[in-house]
């Protein structure tokens, strides 16, 4: 067993091991815990970086062993996996830093960080899964690892949210299980493969394949918060900010979207999905979700809930992108996977900062907060503009690419959807930004805390700024080698030119 086979499991283990160690760490040893956390996150980042380089060079990271009769447990790193893995590795590091600051002096930190690492381990597993079965494994693990984070506060709302969350995700997981089992029974164990497996779908399999596809999308759509399966997401907002950030930016919703990407490209193959006539409905569904999420976000007074509905809308961009037949749309969808993650995590970090530093939860309490917390507010502004799709930020690159893909795929209505959604994005983000900067501060914040020189704790201050900087950089330097866009284009090229 060579190193190239071991690298994926080792990467997985870093956070798994971290989780175990953190669970074992006594509650009061926060220094030790932080050290474990950060060390693991850094090591993971390093390992993922190595894999990114390796995948670029064409190294085959692949580990497989039979788990159940006819079912293999497969870990492998291809271009798509390292993309997602890279995203989670980077954002894990930042979120960990952030969470350390956010949860300072709050109870149950070992539990929190333990499950947090577990969550990341699952995400990593989702990224590195080499077939649907392995994917399912980590997908469900993610569900479970997230629950304690959602209900972390233990309040009535948190518990209710946890219940909703679990209801949705487990049902989705069950549907997914059925679909995967069915597919497995039909055609056996399918590893993820560029171009998919059903280029020439046998005509007698058409009906079951269509049904399975619908089930798969329904199962994955719960996490990806596709309408009407999105109900858990806004409720899950009661979780602490780092969790919301993680849920929305990296782990949960992206897991769903990533799964859909895998199903469409690496299981079915985009051609066969198109041939089955499933691409267009998927695109319509995504489009509707985009608009629905945006419209709902408009009327949310709670900042995090607004962000949550925004997520519902934004994640469907990914779906929309991948359901546009053609390499450009694909690249757009994939790049949004990364970009949206970076932008949304920025916004959630900021929302958390407002909550933690000033005790602000509602949009209308934000008046003038920009003056009190300029760094955070700048990050928020950048994130918001990124979401709107203002150039040259990350969101612009995405929208541009997806829209170009829509034209290439001759689906012009998608552009209308994109534009309408951008307008709606602006409509719910700009008022927030406006309040931040241009309203007079009441100077009477609900729960102000002082941290000395910086506007807030340094642990809280830097992560959003870094991600905001990333939001700018991935947009501005979109054509650089190894940038998300070029990476997504690489994947798309491989997908369409077998």
């Amino acid at each position, binding site marked *: 067993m060579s190193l190239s086979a071991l690298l994926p499991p080792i990467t997985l283990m870093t956070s798994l091991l971290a989780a175990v160690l953190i669970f074992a760490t006594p509650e009061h040893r926060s220094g030790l815990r932080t050290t474990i956390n950060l060390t693991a996150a850094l090591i993971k980042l390093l390992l993922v970086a190595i894999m990114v380089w390796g995948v670029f060079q064409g190294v085959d990271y692949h580990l497989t062993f039979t788990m159940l009769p006819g079912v293999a447990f497969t870990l492998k790193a291809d271009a798509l996996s390292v993309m997602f893995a890279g995203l989670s590795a980077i954002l894990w590091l930042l979120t960990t830093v952030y969470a350390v600051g956010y949860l300072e002096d709050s109870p149950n930190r070992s539990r929190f960080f333990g499950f947090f690492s577990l969550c990341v381990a699952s995400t990593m597993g989702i990224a590195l899964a080499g077939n649907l079965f392995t994917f399912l494994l980590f997908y469900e693990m993610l569900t479970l690892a997230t629950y304690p984070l959602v*209900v972390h506060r233990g309040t009535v709302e948190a518990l209710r949210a946890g219940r909703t969350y679990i209801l949705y995700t487990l*049902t989705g997981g069950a549907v997914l299980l059925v679909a995967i089992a069915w597919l497995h029974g039909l055609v056996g164990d399918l590893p993820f493969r560029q171009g998919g497996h059903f280029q020439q779908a046998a005509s007698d399999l058409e009906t079951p394949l269509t049904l399975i596809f619908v089930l798969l999308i329904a199962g994955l759509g719960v996490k990806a918060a596709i309408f009407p399966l999105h109900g858990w997401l806004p409720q899950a907002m009661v979780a602490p900010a780092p969790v919301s950030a993680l849920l929305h930016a990296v782990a949960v919703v992206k897991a769903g979207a990533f799964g859909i990407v895998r199903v469409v490209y690496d299981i079915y193959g985009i051609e066969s999905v198109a041939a089955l006539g499933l691409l267009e409905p998927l695109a319509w569904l995504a489009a509707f979700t985009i608009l629905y999420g945006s419209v709902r976000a408009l009327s949310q007074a709670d900042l995090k809930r607004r962000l949550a509905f925004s997520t519902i809308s934004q994640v469907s961009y990914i779906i929309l992108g991948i359901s546009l037949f053609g390499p450009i749309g694909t690249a757009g969808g994939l790049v949004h996977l990364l970009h949206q993650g970076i932008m949304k995590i920025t916004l959630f970090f900021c929302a958390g900062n407002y909550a933690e530093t000033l005790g602000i939860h509602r949009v209308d309490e934000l008046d003038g907060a920009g003056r009190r917390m300029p760094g955070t507010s700048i990050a928020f502004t950048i994130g918001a503009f990124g979401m709107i799709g203002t150039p040259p930020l990350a969101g612009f690159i995405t929208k541009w690419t997806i829209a170009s893909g829509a034209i290439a795929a001759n689906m012009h209505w998608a552009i209308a959807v994109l534009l309408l959604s951008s307008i709606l994005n602006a409509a719910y983000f700009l008022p927030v930004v406006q309040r931040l900067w241009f309203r007079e501060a009441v100077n009477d914040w609900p729960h102000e805390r002082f941290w000395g020189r910086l506007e807030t704790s340094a642990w809280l201050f830097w992560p959003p700024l870094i991600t905001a900087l990333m939001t700018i950089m991935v947009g501005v330097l979109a054509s650089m080698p190894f940038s998300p866009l070029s990476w997504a284009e690489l994947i798309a090229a491989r997908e369409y030119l077998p």
Partner: protein
Amino acid sequence: MITAWLMAGLLFTPLAWAVLCLLLDFSRGRLVSCLGITVQVLVSLGLWVAVAREGGFLYGLGGWEAPLGIELRVDGLAVTFILLTAIVAGACGLHASVYLAPDNAWYRYFWPLFWFLWAGLNGVWLGGDLFNLYVGLELLSLSAVGLVALGGGINALRASLRYLLAALLGSMAYLLGVALMYGQFGTLSIAGIASLLPETQALVGPGMAMALMLSGLALKTALFPLHGWLPPAHGIAKSPVSALLSALVVKASFYIAARLWLEFGHELGSTAVAQLIGGLGGAAVIWGSWLACRQSQLKQVVAYSSVAQIGYLFLLFPLTFAVSDTASLQAQQGMTLQVVSHALAKAAMFLAAGNLILATGSHQVAGLAGVSHFLPFSLFSFGLAGVSLMGMPPSGGFAAKWMLLQASLASGQWWWIVVLVAGSLLSAAYVFRIYQASFVAKTGVDDFYHPPGSLEVIPLLLALMSLGLALVAEPLLSVMALSLETGGAP
């Protein structure tokens, strides 16, 4: 030769320790039993390895061969269950040795009963003789009843009486079936009957016998709607005892039923019977899970969960009858995985529940508020076991469900998928109900009793085993699939 020693050790140890412990009080019995558990685990492991290496064999007790004497059937499945028993029972024993208060006089009788129970289990796993299985079942039932009743109050007595009556009725029905079988075939060996069946013309008698035996065993396994005795008994017993009962004892009677079905089912079964039993199993899944959601007491939740989980096992019947060999094999594998994973998970769950009850001093689910803050460790094992019950990957429960799903798909009996999915969702509902209760924020100080570390570690280990079962399912299944090698008897 080594297998002969191992077999002798396997049969001898539990019985001998039972007598030995009878002579000692609880504390000394504890020491002795720990030694015995070690021996037994090692022997079981050795036997498992031996069978995994060289294949199974028949073991004629007293040197007598089948029709006249009693032959034990030492195949892959049997030794796997023996190993499972060793692990689970060993864990429960160790847990009990700390959990039970040594100053209660009647607990001295715990150890003998415990060891007899173990002996009965081994007897059932290995048994190849219908009547011998009856005796083994009785050994099991009576020791189980004894354990439930041990030192109990009115409710414990009521539960154990109910349990005893059910067990006796079940045994008697089974014995009646055995009588008919013997009358028809003149032999008691399962293998012998199976080989004679295809040539038999008149199937009325054997059919009736099969019906009697299956019903009796269903009663002892607590198949819906015959499950009434189980929740009170399992809920009221001491936690290590509940763990033993739920994890292993009910499986024994199911194991016999499954063996009978697989051996005789082709001739004596019918689609209607298969579907009826499967339907009852499906109903059990839904019914048990639903009631588990409704219970206010922690252990009742776990007990009803057993009712539900047992239901899954009975899906074996329709999924192996008149289907392709692949589907049948998948169903059998699913069933064995379900037995193993449920045994591990349920034992872990009951032990953890015991810890939680010990810690909170309350039997109520609502009493768990704040537990996740002050006692995360105890809760953790409970949670992990719950994960397996829900059938979440990579637990054994998941592997089992996966195989059953595959089997349903391969046999075209898609309706069982509905049962499987609904069951796992419902089980998630009751498991998360408990999590949720434990996450309720409780202000104030830590006024919980903190159980000693050894109590906490045991369920955790069991839960972890159950959780990781799917990862080693393939090698495990390959051992389980080992059938008998002819002439392997020593």
